């Protein structure tokens, strides 16, 4: 885990490159720092391996302040990929891949084996080992750049606009590859870019930066759904925001605080709750508000003469976790004919309810919602003839 606590970088001439940021990057996360040039994203990244030292605040990796560590040793356990590949032109592909293992004085066989294995992972044959970087295409060069950062089993990898200089097709392929490698190997990646498409494609979490500050730090879905401010909106751009209805999550449309009863409520009390709230279904939770099941009016009606609690007659219920994309929920509701689906958080606590009415709202919004040109048609009313 990488933790930034109130970290700032102020240069001698007074410019604040990074201004009091706090950020937590969990193990195995793919975090993208995005911003315009001068937003402090690269500085933030380079502070992690101490290529730039922070002027105040604390950066720790797995609880250890990085300033207590030798900078050279720290860098050897953090992978580093830069845009212009930084491959050594006077070294062969093999020598480039095993640069860090060599600094760490690995044995020859182990280095050879690692280089061959990694080369295979990026679909390049061992015949490349003895070539020089200039003999490779740009895409191949950056593949080597990427596996060089993995060669010493670094669990953190820093990437500074690694695909910025590549053509779109090559870039696409390398993005796939990096995402794939990261997921498979479970490495933590901190990735700097100014390309929002790239960020949305790769990131588990995106930190949007401007003028040295983090404006918003969240998952791509959440950022698209709830841009923190106008700056983020403009950064995302119109097109992406237009698409967001398909990106919407259940949290945004659900009815909050649906009517519930606890398991030990008597049927008599339950029917009173139904009447008071004008509903025909009640969700049953335990005392901690954890969803247990559902009771409906028919079930209560059948058993109304008996002295029972709702626990004895409740039925199981399908639910979704908060954060689920609305599109997949809508699909289930429409195909399976559910009237509604409860939404629970990670602890199983009931948070809300997606109803068919919520779906209607969405459909209405997509069709008419943002279109200001539709004039409201004046409604005509029937004229009632006066009766004498």
């Amino acid at each position, binding site marked *: 885990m990488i933790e930034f606590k109130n970290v700032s970088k102020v240069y001698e001439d007074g410019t604040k490159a990074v201004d009091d940021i706090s950020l937590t990057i969990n193990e195995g996360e793919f975090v993208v720092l995005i911003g315009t040039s001068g937003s402090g994203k690269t500085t933030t990244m380079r502070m992690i391996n101490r290529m730039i030292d922070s002027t105040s605040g604390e950066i720790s990796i797995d609880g250890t302040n990085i300033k207590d560590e030798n900078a*050279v040793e720290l*860098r050897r356990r953090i992978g*580093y990929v830069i845009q*212009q590949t930084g491959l050594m032109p006077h070294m062969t592909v093999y020598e480039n891949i095993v*640069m860090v293992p060599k*600094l760490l004085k690995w044995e020859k066989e182990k280095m050879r084996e690692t280089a061959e294995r990694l080369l295979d992972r990026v679909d390049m044959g061992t015949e490349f080992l003895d070539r020089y970087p200039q003999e490779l295409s740009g895409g191949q060069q950056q593949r080597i750049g990427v596996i*060089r950062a993995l060669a010493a089993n670094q669990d953190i990898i820093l990437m500074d606009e690694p695909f910025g200089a590549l053509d779109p097709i090559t870039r696409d392929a390398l993005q796939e590859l990096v995402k794939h490698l990261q997921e498979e190997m479970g490495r933590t990646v901190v990735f700097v870019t100014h390309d929002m498409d790239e960020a949305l494609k790769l990131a588990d979490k995106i930190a949007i930066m401007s003028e040295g500050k983090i404006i918003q730090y969240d998952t791509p879905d959440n950022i698209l759904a709830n841009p923190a401010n106008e700056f983020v909106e403009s950064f995302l751009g119109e097109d992406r925001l237009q698409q967001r209805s398909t990106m919407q999550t259940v949290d945004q449309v659900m009815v909050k605080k649906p009517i519930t009863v606890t398991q030990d409520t008597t049927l008599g009390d339950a029917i009173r709750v139904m009447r008071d709230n004008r509903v025909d279904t009640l969700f049953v939770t335990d005392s901690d508000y954890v969803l247990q099941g559902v009771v409906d009016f028919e079930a209560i009606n059948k058993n109304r003469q008996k002295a029972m609690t709702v626990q004895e007659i409740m039925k199981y219920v399908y639910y979704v976790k908060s954060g689920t994309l609305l599109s997949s929920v809508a699909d289930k509701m429409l195909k399976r004919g559910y009237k509604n689906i409860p939404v629970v958080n990670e602890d199983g606590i009931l948070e809300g309810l997606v109803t068919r009415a919520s779906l209607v709202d969405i459909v209405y919004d997509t069709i008419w919602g943002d279109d200001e040109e539709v004039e409201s048609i004046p409604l005509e009313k029937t004229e009632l003839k006066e009766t004498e």
Partner: protein
Amino acid sequence: MVEFFNNYGSQMMRLIWEHLYISMVALGLGVVVAVPLGILLTRTEKLATGFIGVASILQTIPSLALLALMIPIFGIGRFPAIIALFIYSLLPILRNTYTGMRKVNPDLVDAARGMGMTEFQLIKKVELPQAAPVIMAGIRLSGTYVIAWAALASYIGAGGLGDFIFNGLNLYIPELIIGGTIPVTILALLVDFVLGQVEKKVTPRNQITE
């Protein structure tokens, strides 16, 4: 021609040896001092302009004057001549080392440092190999200069092929002047050729075509 070699042949061999000896010791000292100094200057930018400025000024002193200046300090003979030639060899090597090191692609330096090379490893494994062609060009230049100027060293009693040239001048024997000049030229070309081979050797394979 045959007569010339009969009269002066053995003497010439001795003078060639002396000439080569003075020049190569001076050049060797120059390399030993100027290359590390040039590297050091890339680490202390503030000192760099000052040092290179001083070296440039030393370079402008007329060679004969510099040799003459050595006499009150070091007397006459080989030693002062070597010192004077050494001073001359400094600037091209120093300047080329400095610019060669600075010209190394900053991305390579950044990548090497970012991957955890120490400053020494960075110089040895990245900067020096990358700067080698430029540094060698400086050494070659100094090499030919030093051979040529070593001819003047005989003026302060250091020997070398300059003896032939000065004697030829004083006694008006053109054969001697030519017999001194041609070997100097050949020596200079030879040294340049040898250093060229060294340059090829230390230049990373992929950069030769550059």
